[in-house]
């Protein structure tokens, strides 16, 4: 583990936490001076750049450029989503986060999910927009948009969690002497190497689990040269979804149906359950 990386990770945590805290609304709703907002933007930007230096760039230039573009824009959009005073701007920045995440999905070979995320979340964001327009007050009028619920403690807690995650990930990084994809490196063996790397004997329950996870329908194409996969892209995903995960599909459909019924039952206007008994109803004759 590189001590320099630890220093950069600490810089990410400290600068990111203080920048986010400066950008969040004030606890009592006081107006923050423009200088503190500027300092918050600068600190968050430095934290973002420090985090970017912790990433290892992909081998090809184009993939690397798009990776950095999508990653940085998703994180910047995330900071702006949670710090915007106006919920309309929050929804817009969240749209930026969703688009960037869809780009990252595309870079990691999840074409269907990239399209599906954009379709599902575009609908969700438009509905949120409608809600904001219907319900929210004008910018600067709603007190609760300019008051944060204990922002210091919330930021400290969450960035402590981020520190623990980041430390664990940095400790896992490939040491400099080792090649990035060494087969002898068994810290986190790939699916196809699991049986050898973990020393799992055949005909044990663990081996059957591994075989089930690596069935031909469940295998990504073009990864392992010696193996065969059934379909590419969406065809492969549909293949595994309707063979290995059929019960999941049924369960998820039932969940959607239940949520539909629940949403209708909640949102329908109805008389209160326990009305105030000011004048009791006449006894039935």
């Amino acid at each position, binding site marked *: 583990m590189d001590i320099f990386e630890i220093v950069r990770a600490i810089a990410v945590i400290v600068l990111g936490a203080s920048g986010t805290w400066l950008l*969040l609304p004030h606890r*009592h709703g006081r107006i923050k001076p423009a200088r503190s907002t500027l300092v918050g933007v600068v600190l968050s930007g430095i934290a973002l750049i420090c985090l970017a230096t912790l*990433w*290892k760039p*992909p*081998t090809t230039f184009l993939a690397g450029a798009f990776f950095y573009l999508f990653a940085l824009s*998703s*994180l910047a959009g*995330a900071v702006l989503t*949670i710090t*915007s005073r106006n*919920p309309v701007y929050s929804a817009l920045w*969240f749209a930026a986060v969703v688009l960037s*995440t869809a780009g*990252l*999905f595309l870079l*990691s*070979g*999840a074409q269907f999910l990239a399209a599906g995320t954009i379709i*599902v979340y575009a609908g*969700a964001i438009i*509905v*949120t927009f409608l*809600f*904001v327009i219907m*319900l929210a007050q004008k910018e*600067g009028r*709603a007190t*609760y948009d*300019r*008051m*944060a*619920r*204990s922002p210091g403690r*919330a930021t400290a807690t*969450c*960035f402590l969690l981020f520190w623990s*995650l*980041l430390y664990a*990930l940095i400790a896992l990084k490939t040491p400099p002497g080792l090649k*990035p*994809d060494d087969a002898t*490196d068994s810290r986190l063996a790939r*699916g196809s190497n699991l049986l050898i790397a973990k020393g799992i004997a055949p005909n044990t329950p663990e081996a059957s689990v591994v075989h089930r996870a*690596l069935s031909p329908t469940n*295998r*990504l194409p073009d*990864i392992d040269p010696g193996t065969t996969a059934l379909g590419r892209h969406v065809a*492969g995903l549909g293949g*595994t*979804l309707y063979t290995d995960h059929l019960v999941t599909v049924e369960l*998820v459909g039932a*969940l*959607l149906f239940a*949520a539909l019924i*629940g*949403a*209708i039952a909640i*949102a329908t*206007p109805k008389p209160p359950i326990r009305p105030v008994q000011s004048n009791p109803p006449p006894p039935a004759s």
Partner: protein
Amino acid sequence: MTDAFTFDMLINYLMIGAALMVLGMVGFLARRNLIVMFLSAEMMLQGTALTLVAFGRYHGNWTGQVFTIVILTVAACEASIALALILILFNRKSSLDVTLWQEIREPGQPLTVDDPSQAEVEQFEDGPETYPHLTPAGIEPEHPTWTVHRN
């Protein structure tokens, strides 16, 4: 042939996923607008989905993407129910402030009291898009009266 999605790429994706999740958590804990809290929860789900997709890609199987589809479905269910709840809560209190619903907190928790007098209202100057004030269009003319002639 080495896979382009190396172990270090997986770590990159996990870092981004962790950062998205943590920022969503900050928003969920610190913001008071119900709609912004809902968006923050969706952002936490996005971070988790990114992590799962990267793990699936690293191990060379579809399981991560299948799990992400499940997350997407649960997020859709959550969105429908959350927006229905927001509608109902807004109808009761005419406000999106989550602090107004403190009476359903856990028993034994202290009441959070805010001092809204300390809040300052930002003054917004009217931009060029604001509607101009129309001058009144004169006095209302006398309405014509009809008399019905019957033969």
